């Protein structure tokens, strides 16, 4: 049996003597009588047995041969470099880099991460990471809040799970959320203009949105600007490499889910929330920020900076309580973006786009399968089918294919990335052809 503690019995004896107590139980003097209880937990096992147990559990999960499901979590190719670097224990087993002198590697990596996010989104500042794409959206909205205004207008095209997280975050603070309707899958400008009022402090949408549609983000940005309210975009990182940046669209804050940047699907986590903002909002940004400075000899040095905004100093007046973030995931994204680089990011984006369009074209060529929206899309799209979604799901599962997300009885949200080969797509199509309502 292993307990990961290195003490020998005689060492424990010696240490107890130095402390001046007779046994380990005496360390809880006066407490045992009150609280001690026998816990209902199994006995310990060897590492070998536990490894076998987890292998069995892992085998009880179905890892699909081909995946056409996105909806907030995406399968992309992860270069071996990422796994190799991320296995370095100096990174894995370190705490938050409080002691700058012995943490320059971690601090510099975060600085590089912030810089890459700024490049990708076009924004002027960024931070060390947030919990995930949904909490980042909630935080970003709170960054834009103003005294005397209590409403945020959010597009119905935002991932429903993100909307739910935003509702959770905003409810206790007395903020109200009003949804902007979609028109042919896109955030409706007319509905937005109708709903813009004096009590609105921000407008938000997702690019591309949950239904895969590419929004007229610049047009919505202009409307927000004309009304003098803040503008936040929740963006997909690969789409950022191709589409007009949030900055170009007039966003004040850009947030997103960084999972596609080198993190496996992992049943939903750990993932990565990222944020970029205009410079004037730097001090309202939540979480850790790394800054570049120098030491007494003029050498470049990186430190956690602007800490007086944070919970450990400002306590109840801090804008957020975030302490541990998703540092190792941010490092994953950094190594991924460094590997892919300028061209690789665009290539993955272009392939995802092309494959999704090929998949959509093939699918809608089948009788009884139609695109729900005619608006341009990125790598996801909604298809309405005469065959029930449940039936499609069962047929695909039988063939080791993970199909799109069921949105309603006859609607599914499909996704493709660079990972889906033409052969995989054609196989899916042949399965769908067999599905008869």
């Amino acid at each position, binding site marked *: 049996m292993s307990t990961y503690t290195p003490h020998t019995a005689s060492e424990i004896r010696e240490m107890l003597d130095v402390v001046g107590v007779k046994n380990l139980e005496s360390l809880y003097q006066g407490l045992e009588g009150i609280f001690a209880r026998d816990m209902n937990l199994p006995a310990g096992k060897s590492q070998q047995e536990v490894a076998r147990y987890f292998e069995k559990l892992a085998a009880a999960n179905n890892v699909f041969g081909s995946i056409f499901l996105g909806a907030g979590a995406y399968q992309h190719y992860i270069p071996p470099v990422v796994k190799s670097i991320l296995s370095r224990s100096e990174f894995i087993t370190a705490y938050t880099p409080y002691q700058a002198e012995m943490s320059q590697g971690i601090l510099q990596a975060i600085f590089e991460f912030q810089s890459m996010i700024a490049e990708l989104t076009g924004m002027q500042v960024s931070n060390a990471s947030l919990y995930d794409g949904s909490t980042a959206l909630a935080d970003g909205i709170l960054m834009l809040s103003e005294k005397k205004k209590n409403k945020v207008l959010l597009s119905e095209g935002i991932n429903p799970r993100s909307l739910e997280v935003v509702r959770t975050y905003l409810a206790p603070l007395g903020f109200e959320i009003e949804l902007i309707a979609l028109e042919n899958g896109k955030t409706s400008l007319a509905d937005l203009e109708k709903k813009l009022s004096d009590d609105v402090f921000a407008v938000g949408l997702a690019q591309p949105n949950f239904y895969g549609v590419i929004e007229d983000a610049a047009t919505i940005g202009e409307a927000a600007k004309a009304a003098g309210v803040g503008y936040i975009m929740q963006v997909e990182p690969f789409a950022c490499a191709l589409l007009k940046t949030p900055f170009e669209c007039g966003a004040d804050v850009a947030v997103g889910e960084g999972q596609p940047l080198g993190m496996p699907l992992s049943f939903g986590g750990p993932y990565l929330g990222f944020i970029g903002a205009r410079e004037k909002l730097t*001090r309202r940004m939540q979480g850790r920020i790394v800054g570049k400075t120098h030491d007494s000899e003029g050498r470049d040095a990186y430190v956690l900076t602007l*800490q007086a905004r944070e919970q450990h*100093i400002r306590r109840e007046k801090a804008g957020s309580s975030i302490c541990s973030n998703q540092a190792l995931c941010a490092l994953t994204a950094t190594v991924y973006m460094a590997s892919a680089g300028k061209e690789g990011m665009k290539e993955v984006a272009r392939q995802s786009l092309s494959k999704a369009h090929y998949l959509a074209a093939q699918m809608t060529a089948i009788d009884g399968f139609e695109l729900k929206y005619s608006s341009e899309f990125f790598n996801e799209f909604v298809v309405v089918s005469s065959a029930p979604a449940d039936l499609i799901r069962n047929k695909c599962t039988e063939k080791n294919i993970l199909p799109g997300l069921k949105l309603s009885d006859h609607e599914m949200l499909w996704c493709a990335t660079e990972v889906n080969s033409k052969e995989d797509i054609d196989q899916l199509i042949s399965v769908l052809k067999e599905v008869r309502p």
Partner: protein
Amino acid sequence: MSKLKFLKSHEWYSAENNTVGISDFAQHELGDIVFVELPEVGENVEAGVAFGNVESVKAVSEIYSPVSGVVTEVNEDLQSAPELINQDAYAAWMIKVKVSSVSEELISSADYDELTKR
């Protein structure tokens, strides 16, 4: 400096210029000041109520107003150079106020010196 009045919470008020700032003792206690958050022109301040804050690297302190009134001017230099407060706390005024009333808690320069004597 002897013309200035002080709050025990270390802010000064100059009746001559209608300006408000923090004392030399306060800047010294805070250490290197890295940021000052001040109200905007046109906002109201209230005697005894915080109107802004000063940050050092590892601390943040609220600044309480010695007077009530409307802010007529803000020292914009402090935004880009908060170190001016460390250099000369009495020259580095923070806000100018159209004063409607003055805090009753204000004490003289001599009394403030006495209070902060170590």
